[in-house]
């Protein structure tokens, strides 16, 4: 029986199993990184905003969804190691009760998040714009001096 089973498990089965295992592991990693912690922090009284990073050939564009914030309170700080910290005060305090949740205590008066920029960028040349509840941060990518190759 053991021998038969081994025979049937050919190279394609092994590859399939390998990819299934990889997918399962990456799903679990994804879950532990993103889904395993709450999007709120009672001790800091802040919520974590939705954030996405778009990479273009010249720029890294970070968009942060900041509903119900006071525009003048938005702060963007470049921390070391290619990390940005974005924070903003909300125009009113929100509590768990506002979500209909009565079994937790706490209230939130702002947004706060740290964003790791995945590529080398020029933090000095960062530009920011806030419009219609979205903060857009543009960071020019750092370029190494390339070699120009003539095309014949």
């Amino acid at each position, binding site marked *: 029986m053991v021998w038969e089973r081994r025979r049937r498990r050919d190279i394609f089965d092994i590859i399939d199993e390998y990819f299934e295992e990889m997918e399962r592991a990456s*799903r679990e990693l994804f879950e532990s990184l*993103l889904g395993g912690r709450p*999007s709120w922090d009672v001790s800091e009284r802040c919520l974590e905003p939705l954030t996405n990073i778009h990479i273009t050939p010249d720029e890294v564009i970070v*968009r942060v969804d900041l509903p*119900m914030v006071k525009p003048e309170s938005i702060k963007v700080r470049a921390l070391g190691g290619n990390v940005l910290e974005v924070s903003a005060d909300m125009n009113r305090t929100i509590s768990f009760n506002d*979500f209909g949740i009565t079994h937790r205590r706490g209230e939130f008066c702002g947004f706060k998040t740290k964003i790791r920029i995945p590529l080398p960028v020029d933090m000095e040349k960062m530009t920011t714009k806030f419009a219609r*509840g979205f903060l857009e941060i543009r960071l020019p990518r750092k370029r190494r001096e390339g070699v120009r190759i003539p095309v014949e």
Partner: protein
Amino acid sequence: MGLPDVGLVGVIATTHIVSALGMEEAASVESELMPPIAVLHDGLPHSPIRIFHKDTVLAVLSETAIPAPVVQPLAKALVDWSKNRSVKMVISLGGLPTPERQELTLENIRIFGAASTPTALEMLKNWDVEALKRGFMVGPYALILRYAAESGLDAIALLAQSFYEYPDPEAAAVVVSRVTEMLNLKVDVSELLKKGEEIRLRARDVMRRTQQELNRMKKSQEYDLPLYV
């Protein structure tokens, strides 16, 4: 149909319709394939996917992201159920991911449609909804259209230009206005627009989980250009 997809347009739109029309819970989707979740309302457990009704209108609403592997059996079950219940038309409400969405105001968000049968396609035309003629659709609504086509059920998808990864109450309002006009229902969207920022704040967690599932479905293939014309 209000299933989680880009911008949570369908979920936000359907939630608004259910609430505005005072629709009542009539059925729920029960499946061993779904994650082990109970949604508590007033202290009592409910399925995360429920079906509401009022008069001749049924509304399917999911309060949680649909795991990518469940999309196919769920779409099949919803189409089979609709067929068995002699549903005349299935209307999926959703968003069409649009990179330049940030530049669009409420007034210039466009709405597009897709249909399961030639009859449904003709209905879109009569309702003055521009049909998507070529390209890829990915996600629950793509499969609902395909299974509906297989079983000869008239189904359409109404898709408003929307954000991909942020909750989009404005796109939802556009869809609500159009679908209620088509069905001769009276639903005011001013409250939905007024509460837009609050909805965006409340929808963060469902959006985050939906985005993870959309990535697994390779939703971004909707941006791909097809090989043949």
